[in-house]
């Protein structure tokens, strides 16, 4: 099943986000091997060169590194991954908080809503 992409932004940038997410969430484990470009491009139904560009970006961000003949591996630097993850988490919370405030909710109301959601989840 091919991945879905927005139509107005470069695909390589979106690929970076998707793969990054998989790394930060742990779906791609630290130190683990990334699928080959060909396999991943086929799975995502994207151009291999585009994927290559995405991998290069990830490498620049330090999330991925290439070993000459062995292929591409996720960074083992768990601290870095964790800090990046927290960075994005904070941004997500910031964004959520901002949207809720623009709807007119106060902090107390927001916490209540979140708690209700948690309880629904536990059921």
């Amino acid at each position, binding site marked *: 099943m*091919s991945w879905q*992409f927005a*139509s*107005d*932004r*470069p*695909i*390589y940038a979106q690929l970076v986000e998707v793969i990054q997410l998989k790394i930060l969430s742990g779906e791609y484990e630290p130190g683990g091997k990334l699928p080959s470009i*060909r396999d991943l*491009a*086929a799975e*995502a*139904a*994207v*151009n*291999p*060169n*585009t994927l290559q*560009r995405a991998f290069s970006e990830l490498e620049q961000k330090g999330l991925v590194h290439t070993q000459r003949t062995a292929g591409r591996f996720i960074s083992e630097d768990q601290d870095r991954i964790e800090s990046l993850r927290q960075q994005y988490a904070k941004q997500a919370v910031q964004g959520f908080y901002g949207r809720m405030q623009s709807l007119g909710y106060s902090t107390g109301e927001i916490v209540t809503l979140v708690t209700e959601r948690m309880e629904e989840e536990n059921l």
Partner: protein
Amino acid sequence: MSLLLECRLLTKRYPLRLALNQVNLQLGKGKIVGLLGPNGSGKTTLIKLANGLLTPSGGHVLVNGQEPGVETKKVLAYLPERSYLPEWMTAGQALDYFYDFYENFNMAKAEDMLARLGIDKKDRIKTMSKGTREKVQLILVMSREADLYLLDEPIGGVDPAARDYILNTIINNYRENATVVISTHLIQDIEKVLDEVVFLNRGEISLHMTVDQVREERGMSVDALFREVFKC
């Protein structure tokens, strides 16, 4: 020669219309290029000229720096829009045919793809449905380890599942030294697979960019840009 396909002032004139008007185009290696345009814009004409099936009225078309001839045909794999296999042949015979004439034909790969698509080697082309024939033709072309692939409307009349399979095959077939040109008017399906796009409008090239460039500079998908450029 670093240019796989080059057109220099390529012109094709018919008694009643000008199919290609002094087209200039350069395609490098290792790219998947979309040749996009409405029906009658000259896409098929350009491809046939590169194959030597048409002779130019003016200008040149060069494959690996050479005019179309025996040498270019060795490294060029062509998938036409029409059914071109002799009806009396079986699928197996078609494979043997390609094996006999093309050195770079990968028989094992072809047999594997046939099996994967559930096509029996003993089936005759005559008895196959249109969709199956197209699949056989695609298998024959993609099993060749060519430098330049020219696919004319490969996903046009095919069901969505087959479409995915075709795109998947193209991606899996990708080699750094080869280039695939896909001519189509169904852009949405293939946009993600393309490196570059070439817009052909009434025999002239109106645009040649990478997909990323289009999205970054125009802020829209190639599909959206196409609709804008070719608005009726």
